[in-house]
Structure formats: C-alpha cells, structure tokens
C-alpha cells in the first residue's frame, strides 16, 4: 500500500516546461541589458573608485569637495531644473490645445512635434547659434526694424542655453502629457462643475491630479535629458558654463583622467536615478 500512497508527480514536468519557456523569452533581453548596460556600469563604478594604488575615494572627494566642481554640479542641476520648469509651463497648455484640436490641425500640430525629433540635436543646437549670434537673424531683424542699434549679446548666455534646451527637449514634455490629456474624459470636469466647482477649483482638484502621471513622465524625461545634456551647453554657452556632461568629456578626452570622468558619470547617474525614482514614487497610485 505504501507505493500507492506516492503517486508520480505528473504535473511537475509541465510546470518546468512553462518556466523554461518563460526563461527563454526573457533571456535575450536579459543578456543584452546585462552585457551592454549593467556590465559597463559596474566597470564605470570600478574605474571611479580604483586607481593604481587600490581603492580610493579621491575622485569623489575632488568632485564633491572643491567649490569649482560643486559649481559644475549646480550648473547641471540648474540647467535641468530651469529647462524642466519652463518646458512644463509651455507644454501643459500646449498638450490641452493639441488634445482639443481635430482633423488636419491635430495632424499638423503633431507633425511639428515629431519632425524635429528626426533632426539631430547638433543640427538644432547649431540652428540656434545661427539665429542668436551677433550677426544672426534675430539681431539683424531687430536692427533692421530700428528697435536696437547694436547687436544684443545673445549667444553664449544662459538665456540662449535655456531657450535652446527648452526648444530641443519640449516634445519629450508635451507628448506624455498629451497622451494623458487626450484620454481624459470630459465628463470629469462636467461632473465637478455640476457639483459646484468653479473652473479654477475644477482645474486644481480634478484636472491637475488626473493629468499628474503625464506630468511626472514628462518631467522625468526632460530633466534626465537636460541635466545630462552635452551638445546643447557646448554649442550654446561653451566654456563658461561647465556641466557634469562637459566635465566628463573633458576628463576623458583632454585630461586623460578616466577615474575622475567615471566619478562624474556616477554622480550624474545618481541624480538621474533619484529623479526617476522620485517620479515613479509620485505617480504610483496611493493605496
């Protein structure tokens, strides 16, 4: 009778097969992510803390301990924050306009958002230098109109930097917000108004909270793009506004200090991860 009490586990092979299939599906992406992303990241971390004499935190002390490099970090943060805030202020109403537009107008507006994405960042940044330089289109026009006599210094100012960055990264803010707004049921606003909420109250208590996921996605995208931007500050403001990205490039290409460049890269990554993690936390539905 003891043999009969132990039937063969017939279900087990089926479960194993399912698991194998699942692993089979995951494996390619896992290999790619591990190979081209995780591994270089570990190497980057390693390079930043190991030199000829072994373990060292000298690179991080230099980065976080000298006023100059703290200024560099602040420049990056400032570029990221200003670009994100201004891009948001422009994008939020634009996303609503886009969602309200119909037919051909909507197609044209969407095309004006998508087409610039096809052009390289370098091209767009150069375009801004052409517009803003002393003998550029903006200055020449203003002089021709008699509004100014001498060209205004626009290129290589922080204003030029922020204007260019906002312009270049704008689609990454508009599109996620638009995606949410386009699906927003107009009945929510109507329900709020019949319950006694004025348009302003409806906006702050209903529309804004319901579009928050789009805002958070756009903010995370634009901030991580602009905080780490390299081409835009290099072309539009240059040497006098060093950022983490330009510092990394200089450390690798000019100073030949890979350890220091790696440390700057880790700090930049840390900032980006912090922002993404924070936004993921904010966008999660509270229980």
């Amino acid at each position, binding site marked *: 009778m003891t043999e009969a009490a132990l039937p063969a586990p017939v279900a087990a092979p089926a479960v194993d097969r399912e698991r194998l299939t699942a692993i089979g599906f995951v494996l390619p992406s896992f290999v790619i992510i591990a190979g081209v992303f995780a591994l270089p990241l570990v190497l980057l971390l390693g390079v930043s803390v190991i030199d000829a004499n072994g373990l060292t935190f000298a690179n991080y002390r230099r980065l976080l301990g000298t006023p100059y490099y703290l200024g560099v970090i602040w420049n990056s943060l400032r570029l990221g924050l200003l670009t994100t805030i201004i891009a948001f202020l422009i994008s939020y109403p634009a996303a609503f306009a886009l969602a309200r537009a119909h037919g051909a107008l909507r197609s044209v507006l969407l095309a004006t958002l998508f087409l610039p994405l096809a052009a390289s960042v370098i091209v767009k940044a150069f375009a801004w230098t052409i517009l803003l330089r002393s003998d550029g289109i903006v200055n020449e026009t203003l002089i021709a109109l008699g509004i100014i006599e001498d060209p205004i210094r626009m290129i290589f100012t922080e204003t030029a930097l922020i204007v260019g960055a906002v312009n270049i990264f704008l689609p990454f803010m508009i599109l996620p917000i638009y995606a949410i707004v386009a699906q927003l049921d107009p009945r929510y606003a109507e329900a709020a108004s019949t319950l*006694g909420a004025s348009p302003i109250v409806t906006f702050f208590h209903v529309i804004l909270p319901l579009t928050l996921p789009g805002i958070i996605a756009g903010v995370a995208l634009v901030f991580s793009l602009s905080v780490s931007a390299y081409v835009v500050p290099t072309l539009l403001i240059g040497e006098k506004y060093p950022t983490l990205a330009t510092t990394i490039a200089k450390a690798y290409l000019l100073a030949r200090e890979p350890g220091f460049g790696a440390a700057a890269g880790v700090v930049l990554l840390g900032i980006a991860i912090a922002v993404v993690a924070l936004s993921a936390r904010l966008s999660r539905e509270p229980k």
Partner: protein
Amino acid sequence: MSEAAPHLVVRSISKRYGPTTVLDHIDLTIRRGELVTLLGPSGCGKTTLLRAIAGLAQPDSGKVELAGRDITHVPPHKRNVGVVFQSYALFPHLTVAGNVAFGLKVRGTARREINAAVERALSLVKLGHLAGRRISALSGGQQQRVALARAIAVEPDVLLFDEALSALDRKLREEMQVELRRLLQDVKATAIFVTHDQDEALTMSDRVAVMNKGRIEQLAEPRELYLRPASLFALNFVGLSTRISGTVLAADNGKVDVETKVGRLSALGNFQTGSPVIVAARPEQLRLGEQSEANSAAGRVRSVVFQGSRTLVEVDAGAGESLLAELSERDGAIPRVHDEIRLSWPVTETFAFPMEAQA
C-alpha cells in the same frame, strides 16, 4: 403629494448644431418632487435637453427656470443641480467618501457637516462600509450608487440622470429601477431621467416625455402613455402593437371607419374621408373569436412565443398585414403555429394615426 407649484420650467428652448435642429422649441414644466423621464431614440435631443438644464449645453434660445430662479445664463457650478452620468465620472484619484464629499468641500461646508452628510448619503445607497475604498476597487453597481450618493449629498434642486442605469446588467438594472424610485421618493427629490429604455421609463417615472426629432411628442403618466398614445411614434416606442394601414371610408364624431386589406375596421380618431391612416391596437386587447360591435380579422398563426404569464401570438392576416395578440392560458387554449384563427378587439381600444407620421 399636493406640491403642484412648478419647480423646473423649460420655456421654448431650441438648440442647433450646424444644420441639425437638436431641440425644437421645447416646453416642459416639472413639479417639485416629480420624477420625469425623457424617453426617445438616440439623436432625439433628450440628452441635449438634460445638458441644457444642467448648464452643460447652452440653448440658442428659450429659458430655463429652477426653483423660481432664471438659470438660463447661470454657469453649471452655480445652478445647484445633481447629475449622474452614464459613465458615472467618479473621480479616480479620490476615495468613495472623497467623491461624495467633493461637492460639499468645494462649497466650503464645515468638515464636521461634510462628514455627517457623506455618512448619510452613503448609508442611503447602502455603501457606508465602503467609504474608504478607491473607485477602481468597486463593481459597476457600486460605482452607480456612489455616483448617486455624490449627486444627492449636495441636496440639489433637481437630480438629472443621463442613461444612468444603462451600463448595468439587466437584472441589476431592474432592481436599481425599483430601489432608485423608492429612494428618490423618500428624499422627496425632483428628478429627470434620460433613457431609451421604455421599461425604465414606465417603472421609474410619474410622467414620461416621449421625444422625437427635438420635440416632445407626448408628455403623460406611464399608464396614459401606454393606453392612449398621442402619436404613431409614441405608440411604436412604448410597448407592442398591431398596426394595419388603410383609408378612411367614413368619419363621424371622433370615430372613423377604415377600409384595410384585412377588412373594414373602426377606430377612434378625427380624419377626413379618403385620408390614409394606420389603425392600431395593443396586443392584450386582441381576443380569440368574434365579439359583437368589435373589430375582427382572421389569419394563420405565424409564431407563438411563450413568455410566462402571457403568450405572444403573431398572425399572418394576408396582404402583408399581421396581427399581434397577447393571450393568456386562462382565456382558453393557446393556438399553435399554422392554425387558422380569428381575432377581435374593441373599437374603443383601436386608434387611428395619420399615415405620413410613420416613424
């Protein structure tokens, strides 16, 4: 209920969208505490009329008065109406209690008062135990109740229901019809329902307005609407009927004799001799066999549909005409398919409508 004073008055409002007239000089007066349904097919203007009352659609002309106040140009948030939407439109970022409290919060009501009102509204719809839940965690029926509680909590002058029950499954919908009517009567609410469901209209309302092409075809109590339809459209839209086309042979004092392909029939109505008309009767008026002083027609049974307490018998009367009779087992054996039978029905329950008003 003797509160006969007009509470909501719609005066000749019209609304056009481009070339389409959606509302065509609609007049409607509703008493305090009355439950009225706007019944009609999609596109008849019923939802636009409801939205005009709520302030969500601005009529091109006409006036809306609520509780003695002209609200024609008052924005929705200052009208004190409650709306229950078909999709409920519950705020997904708020809890059940948060949704119900919303209207009171934006009015600046004191917190203690809000809490009491929310509790009262939720217990009214039997959802007190779910106050802390998120909307996404509720079933369709529960969401419907929350939407109702949210609209009731602000004690609106009129409650407006836009196809509010149509998203529920049939059984739940029928339960809600009865429960909702009782609840609204308990709180003495004045309410307007918009629906295309005739059963819902007959069950829930004190009066029903049958709408067609931007006009109210008939405004009557459910019983009168069924027994004395004012137009062919109203006859068709509410309940079943036998309809036979013919020509008026003789007219006399509210009664006409009509020549039809199934024989000569008499009906109530005022027409000139020679007018093309549709003669109609409700199926429960048709009986097996002859009756004196009654209309009658014969034919072959085409189908027999058993529906519990009654059986619907469709008879092919020849020449493309058919008769629909609702028979009961108590009145004798139900005929079977292919049986040759004769049906008769009283002249006083036979109506005639002008042919060109064919819906």
